[in-house]
């Protein structure tokens, strides 16, 4: 056991509580009584990883099996990494404090592109070869899931198996298969060839990619047992789906330290820039009864005094009134706060506002995303200025004084007129406050505008679009600052080089693997942390590999170009995405899925079923 050795180095690092485990509800098993040891790795700090719902679900799901033991692993911060390397301490699981190189499965969740170098760094800290081809033994098999897996190509050199889609079922199937092959003493290749027969399993080593002279992909060809198209997995029925009744309760403060209850998957809105809105389709709702029961069990087993409902758009959940009634019947007495993120302003009813006043008052956030109606029509964010202003008015009457507004810069077809519109809309929200006779007495208003840079993502109607160059984005940011004339409005931006990197990885092909490896070797890690991100090293890495960033980020693709992720099937038809792209360029909107099915095609994954079609708002 590493404990004694850790004990000696932990006084030298910040927040040692990140590295010792022992939290309430963490699962300790007898390693001699399990067949499969699974290291669930989150490629970022403890505080961020411990806030992630997907990890909690899969941790409990694997540990619910008697034959497997799942442990948690996070990226050690740079001070801890230094100590570990100096003292030759390999990356370990927080439960057993044993090296994960001896485990059978190492699973990474890829939630955002800028965590990729951390995956390499963690494999290296585990004292394993970072490249899949250099890990010859059957175990550990390195797998990866999460939303970024919709285009797994940039990470294909490092990961043995990707699991596109939802992990609840396929994880168990893969564990069963690995257990069988471990017993048989199979080699890695045999196992992988069998694994790809499971639906929703992608092994990059079984696909050959060829390129055209201009650098675009020519062809992606499956070999052996691998399917031409890898269809993502979904869970059909969320009510009967596995959901934990316990969460590991961290002792140190983490980002989201509370009970999280998922209420539905998918999104009916179809905002054209939003990858999550397309990736998690079709719509599947959990019943209010199930959600309420799960919240009860979780708050009891964790002692948390806050419940957060989780979905892409809380107010689109048909069971919301019923769920709130059920929850409020016990949460008030138990002194539990409810938080409802991701509310949309166009269905923010008076009734809902009243219910919200019963729960704790947090900040109010709107996401108009674009400054003018024309551009909001382009991105299909079906929100009008009147809706924004009338909701702001309601909120001010309700006592709120701070409002956050989210926008994006660099959207397709955007002009400086649209940028100016952001400042104007923010000003109108400020005016709404001062024109409101019911505004809170003696208080001032603060409106914060957060303007992110648009990143075109796979499986969205904008997957063919060019990202605005850093110079263009800078110009727009400056213009927005110039257009903002009041001190009541504060403007903040995303760093442009970070958004550029995100765009490269999001739509990168296999050759980008070499760039990631080169950048990591130069010392890149924790790229999503401003104080760690080193753009110059990335520029060098691209030059070393003979690739350019603008080929991936700033180039507009034609509809007939073979995209690096064309062998991934997320249910969304390309014809639908093309139609949506064309409508975008004509500033034509598409009604949301409950109003009229737009024919995205994802219901084929669920036997033709989609809850947007057969559940309406009244229940």
């Amino acid at each position, binding site marked *: 056991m590493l*404990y004694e050795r850790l*004990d*000696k180095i*932990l*006084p030298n690092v910040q927040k*040692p*509580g990140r590295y*010792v*485990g*022992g*939290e*309430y509800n*963490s699962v300790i098993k007898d390693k001699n009584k399990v067949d499969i040891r699974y290291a669930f790795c989150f490629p970022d700090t403890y505080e961020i990883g411990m806030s992630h719902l997907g990890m909690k679900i899969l941790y409990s799901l694997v540990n619910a099996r008697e034959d497997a033991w799942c442990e948690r692993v996070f990226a050690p911060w740079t001070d801890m990494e230094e100590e570990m390397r100096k003292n030759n301490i390999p990356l370990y699981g927080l439960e057993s404090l044993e090296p994960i190189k001896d485990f059978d499965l190492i699973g990474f969740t890829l939630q955002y592109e800028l965590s990729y170098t951390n995956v390499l760094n963690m494999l290296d800290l585990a004292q394993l070869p970072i490249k899949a081809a250099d890990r010859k033994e059957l175990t550990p098999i390195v797998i990866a899931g999460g939303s970024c897996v919709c285009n797994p190509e940039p990470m294909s050199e490092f990961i043995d198996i990707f699991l596109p889609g939802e992990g609840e079922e396929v994880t168990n199937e893969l564990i069963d298969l690995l257990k069988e092959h471990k017993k048989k003493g199979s080699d890695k290749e045999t196992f992988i060839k069998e694994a790809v027969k499971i639906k929703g399993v992608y092994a990059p080593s079984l696909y050959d990619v060829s390129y055209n002279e201009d650098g675009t992909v020519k062809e992606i060809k499956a070999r052996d047992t691998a399917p031409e198209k890898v269809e993502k997995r979904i869970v059909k029925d969320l009510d009967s789906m596995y959901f934990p009744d316990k969460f590991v*309760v961290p*002792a*140190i*403060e983490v980002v989201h330290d509370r009970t999280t209850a998922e209420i539905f998957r998918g999104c009916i809105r179809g905002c054209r820039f939003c990858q999550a809105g397309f990736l998690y389709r079709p719509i599947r709702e959990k019943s209010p009864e199930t959600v309420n029961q799960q919240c009860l069990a979780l708050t*009891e*087993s*964790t*002692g*948390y*005094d806050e419940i957060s409902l989780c979905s892409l758009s809380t107010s689109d959940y048909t069971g919301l009134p019923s769920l709130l009634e059920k929850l409020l019947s016990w949460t008030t007495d138990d*002194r539990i706060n409810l938080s409802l993120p991701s509310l949309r302003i166009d269905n923010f009813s008076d009734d809902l506002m009243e219910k919200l006043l019963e729960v704790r008052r947090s900040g109010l956030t709107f996401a108009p995303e674009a400054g003018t109606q024309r551009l909001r029509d382009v991105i299909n964010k079906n929100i009008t200025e009147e809706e924004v202003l009338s909701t702001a008015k309601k909120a001010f009457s309700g006592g709120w004084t701070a409002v956050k507004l989210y926008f994006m810069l660099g959207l397709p077809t955007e002009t400086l007129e649209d940028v100016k519109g952001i400042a104007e809309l923010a000003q109108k929200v400020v005016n709404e406050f001062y024109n409101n006779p019911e505004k809170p007495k003696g208080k001032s208003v603060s409106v914060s505008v957060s303007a992110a840079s648009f990143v075109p993502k796979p499986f969205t109607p904008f997957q063919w679009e060019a990202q605005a160059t850093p110079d263009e984005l800078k110009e727009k940011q400056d213009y927005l600052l110039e257009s903002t004339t009041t001190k009541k409005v504060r403007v903040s931006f995303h760093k442009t080089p970070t958004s550029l990197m995100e765009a490269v990885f999001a739509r990168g092909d296999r050759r980008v693997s070499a760039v990631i490896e080169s950048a990591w070797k130069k010392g890149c890690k924790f790229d999503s942390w401003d104080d760690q991100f080193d753009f110059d090293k990335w520029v060098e890495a691209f030059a070393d590999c003979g690739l350019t960033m603008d080929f991936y980020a700033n180039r507009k693709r034609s509809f007939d170009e073979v995209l690096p992720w064309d062998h991934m099937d997320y249910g969304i038809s390309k014809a639908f995405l093309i139609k949506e792209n064309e409508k975008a360029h004509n500033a034509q909107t598409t009604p949301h899925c409950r109003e009229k099915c737009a024919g995205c095609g994802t219901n084929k994954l669920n036997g033709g079923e989609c809850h947007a079609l057969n559940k309406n708002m009244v229940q």
Partner: protein
Amino acid sequence: MRLTRIWFSKKGRAKYISHLDLYRTFTRAVRRAGIPLWYTEGFNTHPYITIALPLAIMQESDREAVDIRIENDMANEEIKQKLSATCPEGIEIIDVRKPWDDPKKIAFADYTVMTQFANSDDAKKFEAYILKSLKEEELLVEKMGKKNGRKVMKEVNILPLVNKTELALKGSELRIKMTVAAGSTNNLNPALFIDAVSQKAEFKPLSVNITRNRLLTENLKEFE
């Protein structure tokens, strides 16, 4: 509503739970246990949970006290049983009973400091430095203090804060038992004492493990 005092030990992995995190940990453990916490009145309502004396992170303790206010008349024995099942690894509930002394009465604490050296010579040398330091007029350390509400570094003589020391040398290991000032007015973290001696000696132990054994009142009687 009544006040009850929970006695617990904090060892192993739990020593990495900081004072602030321990407060949160207890709130949750008590909620999990279904013990009816009393909440303060007013706008920002919160439970009443007070840890008698903060313990530095990475130090263990045989006996710590936390006071909670509860509603109803749940018996102390029941509280002990329920809470024992809901505390994280390393926190053991020793006793639950009526508080006797006000935490303000805490004036001293007993510690055991285990120091490990590369060899017995170093250990012996360090022991000598400790004995020498104790005999001197002052032992100065730099401590973060406040001056006119601002944080400043100031030099403090910690010798008056050391009440009693007892040294035991065993090979390369030196055990120091010490009674030092503890509480809100005067407080000495034994780690600071070791640092001060290390500075004089110009070398430091390879490892230092500190355990708090008891909390004491003004007349060196056990805090109860």
